[in-house]
């Protein structure tokens, strides 16, 4: 009886998080103002962190809140506020038909996935539970140490690339580029002038 009650509670947790996540996900795509979409995405990320906890993945749940709901979403909200875009109607709406195509495609994709899920049995949960920091670190720094190091290079490239892309081209930079180009073209001019001097 006690076990039965436990099962019910975990089901209730799942249903609460899952329904909230789906509602917030619809909120993302149906809102017109991007800041409300961002709030919807934050709710989805927090719900998924809760679901990760029900799957005994504590470390991933903590990282989800810290990195996703913390860092990445702050970046999103920051950019939305930096650009300060008002709701804008597109002057050209050449892809209007996509909206009518999207709903049947949505239903078809859902039906397809559910059909696949029906063929899948429900395996029992494994008795050994991964998800602690210790077990993750053991895998990350032994077998998967190369991908782990590769991600650090990736992050470095992302830092350099985003700084380069978002940099504002100032007048001084343009002047610097101009002088550098002139300096590259200089040698031919010097040769010509020196030849002229010899002739003189």
């Amino acid at each position: 009886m006690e076990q039965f009650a436990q099962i019910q509670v975990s089901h209730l947790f799942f249903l609460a998080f899952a329904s909230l996540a789906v509602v917030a996900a619809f909120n993302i795509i149906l809102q017109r103002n991007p800041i409300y979409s961002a709030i919807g995405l934050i709710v989805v990320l927090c719900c998924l962190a809760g679901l990760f906890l029900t799957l005994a993945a504590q470390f991933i749940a903590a990282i989800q809140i810290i990195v996703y709901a913390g860092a990445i979403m702050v970046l999103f909200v920051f950019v939305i506020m930096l650009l300060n875009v008002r709701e804008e109607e597109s002057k050209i709406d050449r892809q209007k038909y996509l909206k009518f195509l999207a709903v049947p495609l949505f239903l078809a994709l859902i039906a397809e996935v559910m059909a696949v899920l029906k063929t899948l049995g429900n395996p029992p949960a494994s008795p050994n539970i991964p998800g602690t920091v210790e077990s993750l670190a053991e895998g990350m720094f032994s077998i998967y140490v190369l991908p782990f190091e590769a991600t650090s290079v990736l992050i470095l490239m992302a830092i350099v690339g985003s700084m380069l892309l978002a940099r504002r081209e100032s007048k001084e930079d343009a002047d610097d580029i101009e002088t550098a180009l002139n300096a590259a073209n200089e040698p031919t001019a010097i040769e010509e002038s020196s030849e002229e001097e010899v002739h003189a």
Partner: protein
Amino acid sequence: MVPLSWYLALSAVLFTIGVVGVLIQRNAIVLFMCIELMLNAVNLTLVAFSRFMGDVTGQLFVFIVMTVAAAEAAVGLAIIISLFRTRETLNVDEADLLKL
């Protein structure tokens, strides 16, 4: 314990909502959010399989997916900023030429 198929179904629904968002939204920032939503839906699948198979590898994949998502968000938002500077719009329909 909640059955595995429930997690997979939820993940499929979230992924599909993300796909629909990419199709119907025209705002570049919201498109990025829909891509993040899809990445998260796949993360849920990986963690669920990791729990049910008792293998930590799925969670390591999620860790790396999160790193890639962070890099993607940083570079993508930088591209959006420079796009907005040159075109004064975030509508992806109006940004259909590489040259200005």
